[in-house]
């Protein structure tokens, strides 16, 4: 493995990890922008803009964009979260030049009015699709309630009303303020030549504007609460809960990650044995989500409505026990084996490395080899977990639920 980094005059950073043993290369532009950077007037613009990238540029028509990616056999797409918009492609090494040129071009889209109007329909369909998915509705409600008054509470998709009202001009202004060199990281993993990659990036991106975009990263101070959506026709009750956890820059994040595996992995965790194994829930998990300046433990279960209240008690009991007594040596060792194997398996494919490279850089300006991740994992102790729980105990602070129930009281 070789690591390279460089910065263009406009602030754009290139980070690249070369693996001689793989057959492909993955590249992604990580733009530090998402729903947390939006105002209410433009709610959903980051995600809508991500779609518009595929509607063409000054040099490429919309048909060209999809045609060229398909011509080189790329696996390509884009995604938008609360804080990152990612445009990526996995390709065979011989198509690096063509793919990089196109990927760089589309993140400066033409934003033509007629394309904007057409794509608006697709976005409204996407909102409709998620509206029919109880787990997505529960997640949206949970984020809005938990992060009420904080930018992380903004919806990624926006609402039917905000998208309908959004004007192309507002999107242009948003693009101008957020898609600037210092706000973008190009990450590359797999089979490539560094000098060539650098030259290609210079040619494709040097003309992009520079500047210093702002982001409010104050740590959220959630007050908690309940959001209940009653859908009488639903068969299952879907319940999500959230509590504060270490932000992305906090070294306690490693302990948070391992704790979430011990308490909430989809197999063999405490929540698995207490809820799923006995058949009290169809699925139950606890995860750790890191954000710039904030963090969250998120738990989720889906069950028959009459088990919702007892399951909340069961989760509460697990949390109380872990806060009071910590976890065991055996649990820690087992979680470490699981995570180590996940790290290695994921890193065998360039797409897996790309995600880890890009997110480490976007959150922390940090490069970590697979060996570094394994070493950090090996060194986590029960004392680290205790320290984490003192600062960030597991608590059912915020709850959202979607299903037939009109109340979660048992």
């Amino acid at each position, binding site marked *: 493995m070789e690591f390279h980094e460089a910065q263009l005059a406009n602030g754009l950073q290139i980070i690249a990890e070369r693996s001689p043993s793989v057959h492909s290369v993955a590249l992604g532009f990580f733009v530090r922008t998402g729903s947390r950077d939006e105002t209410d007037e433009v709610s959903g613009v980051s995600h809508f803009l991500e779609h518009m990238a595929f509607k063409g540029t000054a040099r490429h028509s919309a048909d060209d964009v999809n045609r060229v990616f398909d011509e080189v*056999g790329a696996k390509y797409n884009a995604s938008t979260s609360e804080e990152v918009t990612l445009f990526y492609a996995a390709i065979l090494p011989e198509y690096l030049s063509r793919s990089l040129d196109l990927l760089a071009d589309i993140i400066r889209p033409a934003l033509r009015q007629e394309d904007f109007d*057409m794509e608006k329909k697709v976005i409204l369909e996407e909102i409709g699709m998620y509206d029919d998915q109880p787990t997505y509705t529960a997640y949206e409600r949970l984020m809005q309630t938990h992060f009420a008054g904080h930018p992380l509470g903004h919806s990624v998709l926006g609402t039917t009303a905000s998208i309908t009202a959004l004007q192309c001009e507002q999107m242009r202004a948003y693009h101008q303020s957020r898609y600037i060199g210092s706000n973008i990281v190009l990450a590359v993993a797999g089979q490539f030549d560094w000098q060539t990659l650098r030259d290609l990036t210079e040619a494709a991106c040097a003309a992009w504007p520079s500047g210093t975009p702002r982001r409010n990263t104050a740590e959220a101070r959630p007050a908690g609460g309940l959001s209940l959506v009653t859908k009488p026709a639903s068969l299952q009750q879907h319940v999500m809960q959230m509590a504060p956890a270490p932000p992305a820059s906090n070294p306690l994040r490693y302990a948070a990650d391992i704790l979430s595996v011990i308490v909430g992995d989809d197999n063999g965790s405490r929540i698995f044995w207490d809820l799923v194994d006995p058949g009290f829930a169809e*699925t139950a998990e606890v995860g750790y989500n890191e954000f710039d300046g904030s963090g969250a433990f998120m738990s989720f279960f889906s069950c028959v409505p009459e088990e919702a209240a007892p399951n909340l008690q069961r989760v509460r009991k697990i949390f109380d026990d872990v806060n009071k007594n910590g976890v065991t040596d055996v649990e820690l060792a087992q979680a470490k084996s699981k995570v180590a194997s996940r790290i290695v398996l994921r890193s065998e494919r360039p797409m897996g490395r790309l995600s880890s490279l890009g997110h480490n850089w976007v959150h922390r300006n940090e490069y970590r080899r697979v060996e570094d991740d394994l070493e950090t994992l090996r060194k986590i102790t029960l004392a680290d977990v205790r320290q984490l729980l003192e600062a960030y105990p597991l608590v059912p602070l915020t709850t959202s639920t979607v299903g037939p129930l009109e109340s979660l009281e048992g």
Partner: protein
Amino acid sequence: MADQQIQTHSLSNGLTVIVEPMTDVQSAAFSLLIPAGSNYDPPGQPGAAAVLCDWVMRGAGSRDSRQLSNELDNLGLQRNEGVGNSHISFTGASLAENLPQALRLYADIVQRPLLPADQFEAARTGVEQSLRAMEDEPRQKVMVELRSRCYEAPWGIPSEGTLEGVQHLTAPVVERHFRRCAGPHDAILGIAGKIDVAAAMDLAQELFGGWKVLPPAEFVSGPRGPARDHIPHESTQTQIGIAYDSVPYRDPGYYAAWAAVSVLSGGMSSRLFTEVREKRGLCYSVFASLNSLRDVGKILCYAGTTVERAQETLDVTLQELIRLGRGISEDELDRCKARAKSSLIMQQESSSSRASSNARDWYHLGRVTTLDEVRDKIEALTVDTLLAHLAEHPARDFTILTLGPKPLEVNLGVS
């Protein structure tokens, strides 16, 4: 492209072992298929295989449920169990040095499960709850229901069972399903990764050589559901499912069929994505894919759209399916070939893909195709081969299912 050294060996009891060593990975993976799929569910009791799939993991050999789970986790095994029509499948991947111990555990799971009576109800409830959760996910539900309308029973009956069927299952019924079906005949073990072939073959013989032979189980065929149907559902979107005949994986025309559906729905430049979504903005999600059972293949097509635009979506989608047979450009075929080439090469980066793909090949073909062989078949395709295939297997006799607030009309126009 690839210098693949795949070795295949059938044990005397019928189990086929396929081993593919890979030099550029640190991992190893397996895919173990046992012939106890949902086709063999007792008639009128769908869900036996699905419940077995959960129950069988609750202790095996000398280990109870918790010990078994702990040992699998200590190996860092990324695992999954799933039930299909023909087989229950167990897959796993980990660091290569952990593979032998993982296989020892799975040898116990498939040959010596404890099937503890006191945990049957938990396993059954788990399956029942996942079926209830599916009722809340209209996108999944429409495709499951589409299968039961386009495939004859038992192929079309949901592998996961039905709510009613699972509610009435008992431990003796599911245990009988295990005793009747879970044998080495028609069982397949695919292994791939950083492994020594001879050692892996010896291990397979040691672990599975004594697996007792069972007479092959049989199943009863039955009719399929109605070709035109609507399921009322209170939702924002209307879900549309369309199916029509194609060919299975074992058919000589398979690659032509695959390429044709790829022109329809292979990448974002494909017909359905361009015509339905990009040009008309009718939906977010629309796709078609070739679904292959062992002897029958169908094109399954999906679109989800808000109620007011559902009729236009169905009309346009059907027109595109029919229009495909009237012409395909060289460029469209070239793009299919490019995408196939890159996914074949990228498969070499994943031990899990190779293990599963080899096992699946054996089930469908009774042999394994190399990546080079697949590439050659795809390279040999021409626009004429595709059009000749479509002339023989045109898009017609559609099975059409909608799920949503209002039914739709089927307008096939002049074709």
